[in-house]
């Protein structure tokens, strides 16, 4: 094969489909034949049946709704706090000097380890779950936004000054619009991670949500439902990412390459 040589679109699709066919047929081969017992790994049809029963009989849609709501609420809260803070840090060096060492450190604190403390502080209601997402996202957003703003092209800033802009206008008319696409990309990336935190938050003390369902299925050794739950989270993550990307493309057309 020649490195970097493009292939036709149809070959692409065929190969991608082939993977899934191979994947499902080998999964089916080891499970349906009974090579691997169902308590270890459900077969694909079982998974679909289990998923259907979850949706039809156990109100799984409500769980999905609860999970989505938690992620969006926690993420929106994190964005609302982190974006202005990140812009302030990126634009004003004293603010950066003040906060940066702490936030660089705080970013490595695992949100999941905060769960006991969060339960102590806020109970096991929605607040606790939302705060797990919040803690897992906020520091990363602050730092990434701050880096983007701090690296704004100096020549654009200087051009604005020579056109008569004052300090306030530099912030509002240059730094913010210039970095808006990158801030939106940062948010998209972090939203992708948030889907993985929510499960941890729901493993404890939840009475709804996909993570709650997974914990329940675990008790029953229902590998079909566990796999279905994981798959659903994957799909939601993929879909939300897709729409976020489309949104960014629409809104920030000017920043795309020709």
């Amino acid at each position, binding site marked *: 094969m020649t490195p970097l040589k493009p292939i036709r679109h149809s070959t692409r699709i065929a190969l991608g489909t082939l993977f899934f066919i191979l994947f499902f047929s080998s999964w089916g081969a080891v499970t349906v034949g009974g090579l691997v017992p169902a308590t270890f790994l459900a077969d694909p049809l079982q998974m679909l049946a289990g998923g259907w029963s979850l949706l039809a009989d156990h109100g799984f849609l409500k769980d999905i709704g609860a999970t989505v709501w938690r992620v969006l609420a926690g993420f929106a809260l994190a964005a609302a706090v982190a974006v202005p803070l990140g812009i302030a840090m990126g634009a004003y060096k004293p603010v950066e000097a003040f906060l940066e060492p702490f936030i660089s450190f705080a970013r490595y604190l695992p949100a999941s380890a905060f769960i006991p403390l969060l339960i102590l502080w806020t109970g096991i209601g929605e607040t606790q779950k939302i705060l797990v997402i919040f803690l897992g996202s906020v520091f990363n957003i602050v730092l990434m936004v701050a880096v983007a703003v701090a690296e704004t*092209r100096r*020549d*654009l800033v*200087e*051009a*604005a*000054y*020579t*056109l*008569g*802009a*004052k300090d306030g*206008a530099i912030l509002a*008319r*240059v730094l913010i*619009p*210039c970095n*808006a696409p990158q801030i939106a990309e940062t948010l998209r990336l972090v939203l992708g991670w948030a889907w993985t935190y929510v499960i941890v938050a729901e493993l404890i003390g939840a009475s709804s949500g996909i993570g709650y369902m997974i914990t329940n299925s675990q008790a029953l050794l229902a590998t079909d439902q566990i796999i279905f739950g994981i798959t659903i989270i994957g799909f939601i993550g993929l879909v939300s990412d897709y729409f976020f990307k489309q949104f960014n493309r629409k809104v*920030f*057309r*000017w*920043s*795309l*390459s*020709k």
Partner: protein
Amino acid sequence: MNAKLILQDVSRTFEGTRHHAPVTALQPTSLVVNENDFITVLGPSGCGKSTMLRIIAGLDAPTGGRVMLDGRAVSGPGPDRGVVFQSYTLFPWLTVKQNICFGLREKGMLQAEQNETADRFIHEIGLRGFENHFPKMLSGGMQQRVALARALANDPEVLLLDEPFGALDNQTRVLMQELLLSVWEAHRKTVIFVTHDIDEAIFMANRVMVFSARPGRIKKEVGIGFGYPRHYTLKTTPEFSEYKSLLTNEIREESIKAATLLV
């Protein structure tokens, strides 16, 4: 002839860092720029041309001496000195028209008046029909035309250009020179124009300043005796060749000096 802009012993030394010794970019330099002057600045790479221009623009502060514009000392950037940079500095998130209006809005001009002014300049640089294009959709030459219009729309006292055509191909560059000259003749601004191109320096200027290699200073001034307007065929006249031969020798000497300085 009125003195518009005066540089009195302006010098600039960049502080050393842990890894680098201090760099003297500009030796004390004095210069009197008259109203309507079109001055071009020629010199080898790294000789301090951009540094001088940035100090005049107020984007950098001199370590010695001062810059006077219309008798007042320059203390920072302002709309009275329009700048066109070598790098494309249109705001990518604004359309052509919005870019041209940027400074007008800062001045507090009414929207209607902004539009009218922008339209006038868009016409002048021949970009009718591109008002609502984003910079990404324009070629390099078109972007620099808009940058020029944006600077001129602010009606500055002095226009500072730092190799504005440096990144353009030769043919586009030649067309842009003619455009700039025609605009200059119409508005009669005072212009300081930095370039590497000897042809360009002669073709545009009434006075050419030649910088010495780093640390820079004005080594020679050459007055160009051609009147305006100028036609491109001027470049193949013997008089032009004479200026060129003179400046080529001056510059060559400095370039070789600079090349041996380079790491």
